[in-house]
């Protein structure tokens, strides 16, 4: 029987919560996360099934001051795993927690993390959306050849995918924003 496995999984920019759940489920099923590398390739090794909480932070300042950043998480019982496209991965066994523990304990800091993700990851996507996808859709709609229709379909698909990504970012952002600015 194989003791390791790899899985190809794609999580878009705003889907780190889904990724955390995915890693937790794998560990519960006896597959301990080893690393993610290349293009979304997740490596696991066989382990005793356990409930382990996985958490992702996005903090470029932290990555720049790695030692003290990781030390603070270690002090609080979180094991640091790796960085991947700007996200830092941490885990802690549920048995070591009293109640539910996360790496963020209030909505203000959850909102701050989303702001960092927005600056680091979302602005480039918005630039592609407004500077390439939308202008291309307009341009292709003015030409009537089979090739341009093909391109039109391609850009329409990208339009929908990007829009979906922005909406799934905006919903939790708005939720935290309202919770922080309710006064």
């Amino acid at each position, binding site marked *: 029987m194989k003791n390791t496995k790899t899985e190809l999984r794609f999580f878009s920019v705003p889907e780190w919560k889904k990724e955390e759940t995915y890693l937790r489920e794998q560990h519960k099923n006896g597959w301990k996360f080893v690393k993610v590398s290349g293009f979304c390739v997740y490596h696991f090794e066989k382990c005793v099934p356990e409930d382990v909480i996985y958490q992702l932070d996005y*903090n470029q300042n932290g990555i720049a001051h790695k030692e003290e950043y990781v030390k*603070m*998480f270690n*002090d609080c019982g979180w094991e640091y795993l790796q960085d991947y496209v700007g996200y830092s991965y941490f885990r802690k066994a549920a048995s070591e927690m009293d109640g539910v523990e*996360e790496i963020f304990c209030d909505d203000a800091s959850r909102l701050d993390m989303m702001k960092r993700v927005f600056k680091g990851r979302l602005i480039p996507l918005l630039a592609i959306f407004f500077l390439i996808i939308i202008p291309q859709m307009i341009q292709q709609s003015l030409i009537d050849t089979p090739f341009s229709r093909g391109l039109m379909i391609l850009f329409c698909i990208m339009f929908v995918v990007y829009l979906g990504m922005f909406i799934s970012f905006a919903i939790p952002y708005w939720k935290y924003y309202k919770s922080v600015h309710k006064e």
Partner: protein
Amino acid sequence: MDNHIKKVYVPMTETGFYILLCLREESHGYGIVKKTELLTNGEIKISPGTLYGSLSKMEKDGLIKYIKEEDKRKIYCITELGTEVLELEMKRIERLYKNMVEAK
């Protein structure tokens, strides 16, 4: 104190309040976590992501200052501006508490 500081920190989060309260004495991040737990009978457990973000932000805004590093842990202390903010917040909470007691 400029308006930006007031807007961001008054009122402040519970975590922010305990960070400033603890940093009236020099401490590192984990020291703040432990002391806050002690002060709140374990009810408030500051998480590392929240703590790291808050300390970076407060240092940038001049509410706390970096003193030295010990065993990979950065030690901070509150500044004059930080003390001003903390006092403003204490006054707000005192007022809140007074009104709460009166309303009871």
